[in-house]
């Protein structure tokens, strides 16, 4: 990783593990010259916390009006360094954000460095989630570059004695359009000067027709570091004198520590024991020896009072004594119901699912006096900073969180407990401390995607149209519960959300890639498929009859055309399923082909085609990578992934029983993105995953006539459903 300020590399998530890290003030004052453009917090970004899955109650937002969302600096060498509180966890902003900047600024991509997720160097950010980096943060980011370009044009005008209107920019230089040899580079313009601009009004962004770089497929900029082992993750950072901690965990959620005997852990063997309320840990200079030390602790726990398990959970959730809320309501439900000639009511279930990022939660903390520096695998470095400051009793300004590359997040790393643990242990031992959760701890501490219950009541009128839609979602959250289809009399109600409330689930739950949407799309698209069968209409034709949104219609028609879809109604035996949806502003539609082994109940997915309309696409290569990742990850929650538990104990503790999608599961995957350059960029990290449960359920039905109502659709459940056909 490069040292900030010495832009040798093109990106630097986090900073160096150097004990003399510059603060933001030092860092900026180090820029004796150059052009620095700041973008002040705008209303669009303020709005993002309301949708974000911000997990903690401690919310320290910068009240200082002078704070900003993004900034960039152009040095005397013409090199651009840009800063963002977003983080790189595989989803690709390390490539797409510099791509946007290079486009607006008219510089070579090679001349843009990016520094990410360092709370001292980077401007405040609420967190990297919700497919918001491109669609919500992107315009602010581009604005900073566009403003910088405007300033450079002014400077160029003074320097070249040519009116701004006659100037153009290209490859890091201001050029006289009447005489292209009459030019001056950005570096020459900023040399010897110190210019600061704070941007409060939106500048004129480039129109898509003028794009040279945006819209071009670019390979990942971090790939070389990731294939050579140079890419560092939080647990790869080393500091002199550091200790590795193993934290004592209860055997079950709800179990409480009665007593612990640590007498077997001898100081002479290098063990350091910390016992604080709620945090007991053994530390050692060697991580595996610390882990062995944990086994030498004799801890006694009072058992959990929970009587819940993965079978009785649905009854518990369905009958939870909690008031519901109306999410949306249209027309008159009773009127719609009275028009219905055929009724269809179904309850859909989905299990708890783990995030299971390949990198477990990790952090290295160094607390010295009243200052703390923490390298953390986190999706929200500023949230981590606030949590750490709160736990240590320090002012937020005294805590710095640095985010190296993050080894997958999917919502799970919106939680920063490991960083707080590392900080508390560093404070207690006065040494740098690394906490890297074992896989077993990861499964125990994870904030699972919640188990949920959705009941849909709907009916067809005499003409075979959907007469009414009465939809109730419990505990998945209402994101993605919107109907999409044009049904005049409808109501959507919800109980709880994807974070609980507290006390409902036997353990913590939270945001999981497209929170709420996977559950809601499973219920809605399964139910629409059932209605299509009831109406005796082809499932694509049936959907098109209920759709008026032109973007949705376009995506579904493109899907049918690309597949060469041949209409059929009822159980065709082909094993083809269809589903469509809308998430993060992106329209998505998928067809999947499956084969079901009637003896074993095993589902083989043969082919998946996914079509998206996501507005203007910054990096089509990155967008397709996300679609493929969504489809592959979605195979897991659809077919296999499920957390088993009993009385607070998590029974799946590692990958031996908790199965992720594997190479051998892979279908042929095809993706297509429909051009929509006139629509602003929309989200890409989540939409394609939301349909995987429903599209496979619909395909299984089309293959066998068996309707699966519970995720995951394990071989046992498929066999049971086949027996009911």
């Amino acid at each position, binding site marked *: 990783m490069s040292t900030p300020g010495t832009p040798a590399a093109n990106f630097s998530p986090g900073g160096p593990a150097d004990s003399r890290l510059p603060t933001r003030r030092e860092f900026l004052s180090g820029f004796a010259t150059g052009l620095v453009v700041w973008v002040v917090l705008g209303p669009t970004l303020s709005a993002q916390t309301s949708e974000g899955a911000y997990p903690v109650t401690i919310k320290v937002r910068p009240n200082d009006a002078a704070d900003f969302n993004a900034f960039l600096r152009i040095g005397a060498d013409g090199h651009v360094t840009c800063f963002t509180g977003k983080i790189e*966890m*595989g*989803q*690709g902003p390390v490539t797409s954000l510099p791509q946007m900047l290079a486009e607006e600024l008219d510089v070579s991509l090679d001349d843009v460095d990016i520094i990410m997720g360092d709370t001292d160097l980077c401007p405040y950010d609420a967190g990297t989630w919700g497919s918001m980096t491109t669609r919500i943060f992107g315009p602010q980011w581009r604005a900073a570059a566009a403003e910088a370009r405007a300033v450079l044009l002014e400077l160029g005008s003074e320097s070249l004695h040519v009116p701004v209107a006659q100037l153009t920019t290209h490859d890091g230089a201001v050029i006289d359009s009447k005489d292209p040899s009459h030019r001056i580079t950005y570096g020459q313009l900023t040399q010897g000067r110190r210019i600061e601009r704070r941007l409060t009004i939106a500048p004129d962004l480039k129109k898509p027709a003028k794009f040279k770089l945006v819209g071009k497929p670019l*390979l*990942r900029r*971090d*790939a*070389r*570091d*990731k*294939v*050579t*082992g*140079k*890419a*560092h*993750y939080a*647990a*790869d950072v*080393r500091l002199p004198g550091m200790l*590795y901690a193993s934290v004592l965990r209860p055997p079950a959620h709800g179990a409480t520590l009665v007593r612990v005997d640590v007498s077997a852990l001898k100081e002479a063997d290098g063990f350091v024991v910390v016992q604080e309320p709620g945090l007991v840990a053994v530390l050692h*200079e*060697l*991580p*595996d*020896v610390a882990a062995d030390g944990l086994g030498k602790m004799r801890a006694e726990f009072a058992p959990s009072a929970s009587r819940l398990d993965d079978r009785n959970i649905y009854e518990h959730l369905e009958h939870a004594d909690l008031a519901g809320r109306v999410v949306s309501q249209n027309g008159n439900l009773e009127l719609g119901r009275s028009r219905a000639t055929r009724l269809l009511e179904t309850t859909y279930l989905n299990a708890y699912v783990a995030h*299971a*990022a*390949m*990198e*477990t939660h990790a952090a290295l903390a160094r607390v010295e006096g009243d200052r703390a520096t923490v390298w953390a695998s986190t999706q929200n470095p500023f949230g981590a900073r606030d949590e750490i400051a709160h736990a240590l009793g320090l002012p937020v300004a005294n805590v710095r969180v640095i985010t190296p*590359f*993050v*080894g*997958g997040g*999917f919502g799970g790393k919106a939680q920063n407990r490991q960083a707080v643990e590392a900080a508390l242990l560093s404070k207690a031992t006065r040494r740098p401390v690394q906490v*890297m959760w*074992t*896989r077993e701890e990861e499964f125990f501490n994870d904030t699972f995607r919640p188990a949920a219950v959705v009941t849909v009541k709907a009916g067809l009128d005499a003409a075979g149209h959907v007469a009414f839609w009465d939809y109730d979602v419990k505990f998945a959250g209402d994101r993605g519960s919107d109907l999409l289809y044009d049904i005049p009399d409808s109501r959507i109600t919800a109980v709880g959300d994807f974070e609980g409330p507290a006390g409902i689930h036997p353990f913590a739950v939270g945001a999981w890639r497209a929170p709420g949407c996977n559950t809601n799309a499973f219920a809605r698209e399964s139910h629409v498929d059932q209605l299509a069968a009831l109406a005796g209409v082809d499932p694509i034709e049936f959907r098109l009859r209920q759709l008026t949104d032109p973007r949705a219609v376009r995506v579904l028609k493109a899907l049918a055309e690309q597949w060469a879809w041949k209409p059929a109604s009822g159980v065709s035996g082909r094993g083809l399923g269809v589903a469509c949806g809308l998430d993060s502003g992106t329209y998505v539609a998928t067809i999947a082909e499956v084969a079901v082994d009637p003896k074993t109940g095993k589902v083989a997915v043969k082919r998946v085609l996914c079509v998206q309309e996501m507005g203007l696409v910054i990096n089509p*290569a990155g967008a397709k*990578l996300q679609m*493929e*990742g*969504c*489809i*592959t*990850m979605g195979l897991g929650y659809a077919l296999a992934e499920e957390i088993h538990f009993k009385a607070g104990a998590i029974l799946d503790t*590692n*990958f*031996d029983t908790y199965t*992720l*999608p*594997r*190479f*051998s599961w*892979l279908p042929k*995957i095809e993706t297509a993105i429909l051009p929509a350059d006139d629509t602003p960029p929309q989200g890409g990290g989540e939409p394609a995953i939301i349909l995987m449960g429903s599209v496979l359920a619909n395909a299984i039905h089309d293959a066998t006539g068996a309707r699966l109502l519970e995720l995951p659709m394990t071989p046992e459940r498929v066999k049971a459903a086949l027996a009911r056909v």
Partner: protein
Amino acid sequence: MITVSFRLNDQPVSVQVAPDRTLLWVLRTELGITGPKYGCGISQCGACTVLVDHRAVRSCNVKVKSVEGREVVTIEGLAQGSALHPLQQAFVQHDALQCGFCTPGMILTAYGFLRSHPNPTRAEVIEGMDQNLCRCGAHLRIVEAILSAAAVMRGGPAS
């Protein structure tokens, strides 16, 4: 304590360790080689894969004393200077990664696989890689990258 000597990424190394120490943790701690990743600790995910005498092994499940006198290569040692190994090159060219955490293990598992299957079919690659986990869903591109690298390693052009 015992002394274990071996070659690591083309350099001789010697470490004094307790006899039951695991290769993964000695590499990551005493030797400062962090390319091999901890993912599961029970040989289920492959993120910790390294080469021992050119064979891919899961370093979370190997005692360091077992590599005495052997040649250990981690992802840090696969490139020849600045020239990437064809597998590394192919992973870059095919965007065959996202978060990158499983990548060192994927590449070294593929290296071991191609030693015994220099001209594999797609189905053989899938079977050969099936015990390595990736959560981001880069699988299809990893298969393409391995097939492409295999062609280059046989002396043909990259696909």
